[in-house]
């Protein structure tokens, strides 16, 4: 018995050595051994990126499964979603995983973004990591926007109409981008085909490529440390090895995140509204998904004209300026002055509170 075990161990070692040598895994082993994670009272936020990734993985798997039955054709799209929801075994489950997964992915990406912001992870040398993160957030929202049209129900139709009108009115690129996305003068088959292509091919490829850059930069710079932690004497700073300590905790958090998703899917399966009718009025009480509610309420509040500028253009410019603030933050708060750090904090808190306030207002109004 002992001899057999010894022989099995030998074989495993042999295979292990073979893989390490042929796949040049020594560098990776070295990196994993070297990588350490700071331990402090804000360490919890380090898990948010991983949670976002696991939700993205769910999106990829369920998205591929949905493509088996979904038909991106204007007269069949809605019926195919109904079929998935009601006739295909576990179709409702796969679709709800995809829909709830998208909402949780955007939520965890937003929490990751804002927690990194408040931990000042945008400062030198992590500017490019930060910018990549901002673009990844935009890509997540673009996933939500393009996927929303595909079921071709009344809500998705008007959400797309408004979104495309905003895109078309965006300064500089709007005139070019709006018609390219819409594919004609009205939302039609051309729009569904384009959105489908963007949703299942362009966005995943772009997101995966950029995510690779983002992760590679996180590896090369190491985990960002909050100023209070970095300022403590080295002997008082605590770190834990990424592998296996943090990695196994990460996996536990992923299991928890997946449990949250499963509970939501089982308790609140995702439905589908009536089929879109491009000639019917927008239903009373129509609202976008929660992540666009802030922008929705903001656009409702702006009067037709703000000085010499049309209200909607003013709204688009104002929202772009808020985004620009995040983009240029590494230059404003570079860690050289406390005053600038305070300014960044005030900016971040104002944006978060403003978003929460407008979103709640939008949901209740």
């Amino acid at each position: 018995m002992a001899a057999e075990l010894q022989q099995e161990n030998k074989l495993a070692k042999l295979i292990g050595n073979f893989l390490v040598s042929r796949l040049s895994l020594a560098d990776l082993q070295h990196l994993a051994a070297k990588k350490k994670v700071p331990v402090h009272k804000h360490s919890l936020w380090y898990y948010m990126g991983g949670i976002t990734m696991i939700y993205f993985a769910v999106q990829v798997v369920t998205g591929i499964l949905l493509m088996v039955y979904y038909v991106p054709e204007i007269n069949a799209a809605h019926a195919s979603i109904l079929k998935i929801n009601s006739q295909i075994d576990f179709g409702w489950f796969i679709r709800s995983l995809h829909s709830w997964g998208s909402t949780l992915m955007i939520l965890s990406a937003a929490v990751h973004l804002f927690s990194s912001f408040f931990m000042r992870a945008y400062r030198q040398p992590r500017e490019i990591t930060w910018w990549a993160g901002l673009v990844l957030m935009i890509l997540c929202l673009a996933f939500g926007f393009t996927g929303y049209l595909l079921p071709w129900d009344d809500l998705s139709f008007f959400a797309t109409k408004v979104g495309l009108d905003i895109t078309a009115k965006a300064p500089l690129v709007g005139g070019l981008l709006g018609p390219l996305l819409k594919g004609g003068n009205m939302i039609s088959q051309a729009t569904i085909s384009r959105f489908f292509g963007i949703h299942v091919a362009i966005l995943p490829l772009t997101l995966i490529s950029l995510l690779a850059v983002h992760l590679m930069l996180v590896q090369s710079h190491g985990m960002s440390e909050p100023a209070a932690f970095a300022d403590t004497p080295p002997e008082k700073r605590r770190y834990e090895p990424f592998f296996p300590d943090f990695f196994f905790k990460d996996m536990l958090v992923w299991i928890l995140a997946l449990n949250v998703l499963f509970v939501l899917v089982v308790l609140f399966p995702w439905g589908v509204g009536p089929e879109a009718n491009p000639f019917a009025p927008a239903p009373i009480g129509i609202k976008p998904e929660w992540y666009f509610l802030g922008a929705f309420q903001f656009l409702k509040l702006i009067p037709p004209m703000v000085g010499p500028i049309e209200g909607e253009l003013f709204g688009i410019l104002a929202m772009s300026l808020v985004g620009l603030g995040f983009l240029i933050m590494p230059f404003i708060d570079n860690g050289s002055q406390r005053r600038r750090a305070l300014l960044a904090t005030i900016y971040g808190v104002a944006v978060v509170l403003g978003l929460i306030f407008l979103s709640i207002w939008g949901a209740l109004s």
Partner: protein
Amino acid sequence: MRTALGTVAVLWGGVALYPIYRYLAPRPDTSDDETQVTSVEVCKLSELPKNSGKNFRFGSFPALLIHTEDDGLHAFKAVCTHLGCTVQYRGDIQRIFCACHGGQYDPTTGKNIAGPPPKPLDSLKVAVVNDQVVVSRA
């Protein structure tokens, strides 16, 4: 050498991107024959009570016919001038209403009177022929 390589790269990029752009850009004349519709029989006048409206298709765009409390008939292109949602008539407030962002218009003139819309609605012409309400381009 670098300049030559850069120039070739830019030219090559342009050569590759232009056909892609043209391939994706919608053709200006794809506006189907339906846009050539000049008039539509919407319904019988008796089917449209006072203080009510009816959304209908006018060629490639949605339109709205309103029978006002004072027995007037008015029709408009039902596309909100704010962000393009389809508007409807609401009898409870006696206004044309956009559910997307709460824009409101006067049901007799189409003028924007509340909320974010920057311009009035485009008007259409209404006539009653043998009890049939006919809407045509203004």
